[in-house]
């Protein structure tokens, strides 16, 4: 279980990206984090495995306090956190297999990594996962020969082979067309469910979030403004997330009692739909 308490991030430029955000991801649920661009979604996800160093707050993954770890311990802890990126971030000039096995680097020595001699069970698992994501027989293709959808499948395989305690997913579909986006999101949540891994997805396409997530949290201006199930997310909730309307008292079920006509129109206009990037 991931517990993020009062997470703050201020960039050296003075930009306050996160102003104290508290979020938990439990069991094997899929949590989607929505919000306009610049809301701090990416920063939040990247702070969890400290690719971006948080300025304040605490992050707990099961019994480990990630924010308190030194370099070596952090490296071990990262083995338990799978991450999937917006631009795939695959190593373009390596093969599909090498990219998937990158997920096991934390368990082999540098020399083994150089020789590409990974334990047999890792290789076997890599094959299985590749088949699961629909890339069987593609293991020796170089990543720069693949399409966007195929690349993101490799990205998923790389994260899953880590056998992580949680999957962090940063805008997985914003480089994909709408149809592929939906397929990739479906694949991602299915695999997570099969393996009972909780997922935190940062995504700006509300439709995809509603279709695939168990729970939705909304960020605006570095603050948590919505938390609830997809069903709770009505126009009022969207208003809060995308227009920064005042945070009402009933955060938690997200039910909005009254939504002005004016607000509706704007919310429609502001809300990005699946496929828009």
């Amino acid at each position, binding site marked *: 279980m991931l517990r993020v308490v009062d997470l703050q991030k201020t960039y050296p430029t003075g930009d306050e990206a996160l102003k104290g955000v508290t979020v938990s991801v439990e069991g094997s649920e899929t949590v989607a984090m929505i919000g306009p661009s610049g809301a701090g979604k990416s920063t939040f996800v990247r702070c969890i495995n400290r*690719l971006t160093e948080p300025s304040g707050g605490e992050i707990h993954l099961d019994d480990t306090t990630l924010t308190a770890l030194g370099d070596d311990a952090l490296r071990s802890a*990262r*083995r338990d956190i799978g991450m999937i*990126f917006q631009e795939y971030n695959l*190593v*373009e000039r390596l093969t599909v297999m090498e990219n998937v096995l990158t997920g096991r680097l*934390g368990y082999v020595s*540098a020399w083994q990594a150089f020789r590409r001699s990974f334990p047999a069970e890792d290789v076997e698992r890599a094959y299985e996962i590749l088949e699961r994501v629909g890339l069987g027989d593609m293991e020796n293709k170089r990543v720069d020969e693949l399409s966007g959808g195929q690349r993101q499948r490799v990205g998923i395989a*790389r994260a899953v082979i*880590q056998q992580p305690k949680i999957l962090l997913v940063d805008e997985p579909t914003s480089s994909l067309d709408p149809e592929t986006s939906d397929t990739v999101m479906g694949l991602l949540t299915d695999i997570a469910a099969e393996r009972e891994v909780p997922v935190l997805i940062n995504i700006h396409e509300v439709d995809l979030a509603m279709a695939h997530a168990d729970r939705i949290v909304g960020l605006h201006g570095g603050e948590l403004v919505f938390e609830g199930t997809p069903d709770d997310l009505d126009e009022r909730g969207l208003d809060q997330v995308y227009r920064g309307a005042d945070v009402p008292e009933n955060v938690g079920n997200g039910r909005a009692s009254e939504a002005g006509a004016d607000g509706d129109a704007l919310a429609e206009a502001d809300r990005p739909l699946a496929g828009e990037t």
Partner: protein
Amino acid sequence: MAAERREWERFDRRRRIGRFLLTLVAAVAVVGSWRFMDTGIVRPETIPREVGDLLTRMYPPDVAYTARIVGPLVETVQIAALGTIGALVLAVPVALLAAENTTPNAATFWLGKVVVTVSRSVNTIVWALFFVVLFGSGPLAGAVAIAFRSVGFLGKLLGEEIEEIDFGQVEAVRAAGASSAQVLLYGILPQVKPALVGLSIYRWDINIRDSTVLGFVGAGGIGVQLFRAVNAFAWQSVATVLIVILGVVVATESLSAYTRGLVR
């Protein structure tokens, strides 16, 4: 309309004045330089005759001399190869220091830049003078000199290549819990590998040319034979050596161009 045209003219005139001044400076520099030089007793108009005279004495090349230069020629190739490999080994850390995105801090960045600048500003032959003092005369000094000269070249260009890499790929490897060495192997190395191979081959090609003169300061290679022949006024042997050098240089240049074409 008229005002626009005037403005355009003014700009053009300024440009023209700039160019005129630049040409003037160049002209003054050339004339001044010529007058400054003490050209001695040799009169410039006699140069073509003198050079022609020398070339005549080189003909025909002494074919028999070829047998004596095979050994030194092989040595030249060895010096270039070892020098390039040595430079490559040293250049990788230098490049990592001299690249803004991989250098640990400002001090190491400047250290990288200084190593690159010093290596590049000192000619191979000067490096050779230095290493002859250190290792004694012979090809070892030559190989080390070649390596020291090449470090700056490779370090600079490789460093620029590292600055261009996609850092997202590096980050993804780091996010999986990889150690620094593994990040280097999986995140950075694959991205710069084509440049690494291409630049090394290119530098090897340059080093073959540079190795031909090391002999003048006693650092081995075919230059030893060349300068011996020159000092003995054995012009026909000199011609043979020059032809052999030309052949080797042209061959390595084509080989280098071909191999660089293969790397993708």
